[in-house]
């Protein structure tokens, strides 16, 4: 339980920034503006990870999401979009149906989030100070096989992205 007034305030401010920028990501009509608000959302989420005592994940969030993923998406947009940028991010015809599905999802998940007895599950012990050292040791001992598989996944994704995005020859015999 966080009881300090500053962490409570920080949670509400960060939650407001995250939700507001996420709504703007979805509602903006210019896709470049959408990606900008996506970066703001990711950085606010890194702050939320700091409140949750996950400093390493906050750094990774800024590096990978706010840095790499946003820049890569901007590159993708600039390589693809040649028409007017102002109308590049519109809604399709299923918007009302999507709203219904989303309202249902939100109602069900909100109901279960509200009725589950989270207090019975809580461990009530603080997170250890040296979390990064322990994560490193766990990643290279107990979770070493998933770690290596993740490395393999990144290699396959790298090669796959290059092969897919490479210029395709229309006729090999030419």
């Amino acid at each position, binding site marked *: 339980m966080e009881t300090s007034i500053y962490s409570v305030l920080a949670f509400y401010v960060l939650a407001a920034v995250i939700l507001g920028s996420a709504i703007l990501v979805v509602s903006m009509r210019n896709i470049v503006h959408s990606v900008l608000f996506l970066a703001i959302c990711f950085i606010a989420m890194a702050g939320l990870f700091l409140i949750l005592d*996950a400093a390493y994940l906050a750094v990774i969030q800024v590096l990978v999401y706010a840095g790499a993923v946003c820049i890569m998406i901007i590159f993708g947009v600039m390589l693809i979009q040649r028409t007017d940028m102002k109308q590049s991010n519109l809604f399709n015809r*299923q918007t009302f149906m999507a709203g219904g599905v989303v309202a249902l999802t939100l109602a069900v998940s909100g109901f279960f989030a509200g009725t589950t007895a989270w207090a019975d599950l*809580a461990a009530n012990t603080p997170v250890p100070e040296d979390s990064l050292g322990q994560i490193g040791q766990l990643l290279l001992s107990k979770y070493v096989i998933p770690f290596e598989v993740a490395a393999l996944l990144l290699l396959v*994704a790298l090669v796959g*992205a290059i092969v*897919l995005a490479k210029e395709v020859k229309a006729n090999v015999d030419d």
Partner: protein
Amino acid sequence: MLTISLTHYVVLSAILFSIGLFGVLSKKNAISVLICIELMLNAVNINLIAFSKYITPNEFIGQIFAIFVITVAAAEVGVGLAIIIAIYRNKLSVNLDEFDWLKW
């Protein structure tokens, strides 16, 4: 009301997931759908890290799982953008409603 419990994080994550889901279902641009998938994955990450802090603070399972989610999300964006670029080269469009080769 001056305490932050696990419920706050779960509700925040549910709302963020719903915003992402709405974007995935209702956007025309394929890149925009990729962006909204990232929002959904981040909502899941908030859940995992909050569970890691409040339920198993000494085992770091949630944090390690979140690291793998971030890895897979990065790979997914790379391959997804490559696929969209390859489709754009053939079709000169990124509108998902026009990707209908598998229909007959």
